[in-house]
């Protein structure tokens, strides 16, 4: 499974959405992505990519796309692999 697939699956599993819906997801744009859902998402991301997100990044991770940017820029996740 590629890193992008892993990342997309985290959103599918966290929020019960379809894979084709994940790219447009934003914090509090869907009911499941509230603050509690956010912590569950973060926990899964950390587990899947074996990283520990800094609190500032947890706060900044407010969309699917932003999350990709943070993971790529700061945590060395290569989404081309």
């Amino acid at each position, binding site marked *: 499974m590629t890193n992008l697939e892993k990342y997309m699956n985290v959103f599918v599993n966290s929020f019960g959405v379809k894979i084709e819906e994940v790219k447009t997801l934003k914090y509090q744009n869907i009911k499941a992505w509230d603050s509690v859902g956010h*912590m569950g998402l973060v*926990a899964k991301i*950390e*587990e899947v990519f074996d990283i*520990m997100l800094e*609190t500032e990044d947890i706060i900044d991770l407010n969309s699917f796309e932003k999350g990709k940017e943070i993971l790529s820029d700061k945590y060395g996740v290569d989404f081309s692999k």
Partner: protein
Amino acid sequence: MLKGKNAIITGTNRGIGKALLEEFAANGANIWAHSRKETSEFNKLTQDLSVKYGVKITPVYFDLTDYNEMKNAVMRISKEKQHIDCLVNNAGIMDGALFSMTSQDMVRKEFEVNFFSVFFLTQYVTKFMLRQQSGSIVNISSYIALKGIEGKSAYSASKAALIAMTKTISNELGSKGIRANCIAPGIVNTDLLKDVSEAEIAKAKNSSALKRMAQPVEIAKVAAYLASDNSSFITGQTISVDGGM
């Protein structure tokens, strides 16, 4: 009481922390034993206790005020792929000065070690407890946070912040199977007392029903209980272990 449990304990090289190390080991816990600096004496202590009680004790060295070191240490622990069942936030410092003579540096230092380090270490460790949906956090506060004594305004405030934080996280994390409790020890026979006047020590002893100081092991036994499943319905509490003050 703690057989099969894995615990992180901070400040285990002396005082209450050293007693925690032995008490948790005696009860069967495997321990990641934190100390700020590596010494041959501490290495020997962990090895001797490991052999004596047949448990795994791994020394972990980092400065609690260095969050990069802290994060790296927790990551190293997590890579062992073991449950982290308990976190005992014991390490702390105690300075003293009358309120009007308490410098900004002293206040910052007390809060940095006694509160901020606990806050952020607990944040890191609870990431793993949340995955497990289980865990027990035990924070060592102080009777001084509840009663206040002259010359300890910064210390008492930093320890009181622990109590408030503990209560809050017990509410936030309870539904995820994580408990958080504080212990507020009274006067304990450790070298922290060097900063407490003889008069204050005597006053504290006399104000307690038991009219004496605690030994570190008496605090450690309560921490072991709170870490164990024997206290499975206790959370959000501050247990005063102060001889009846």
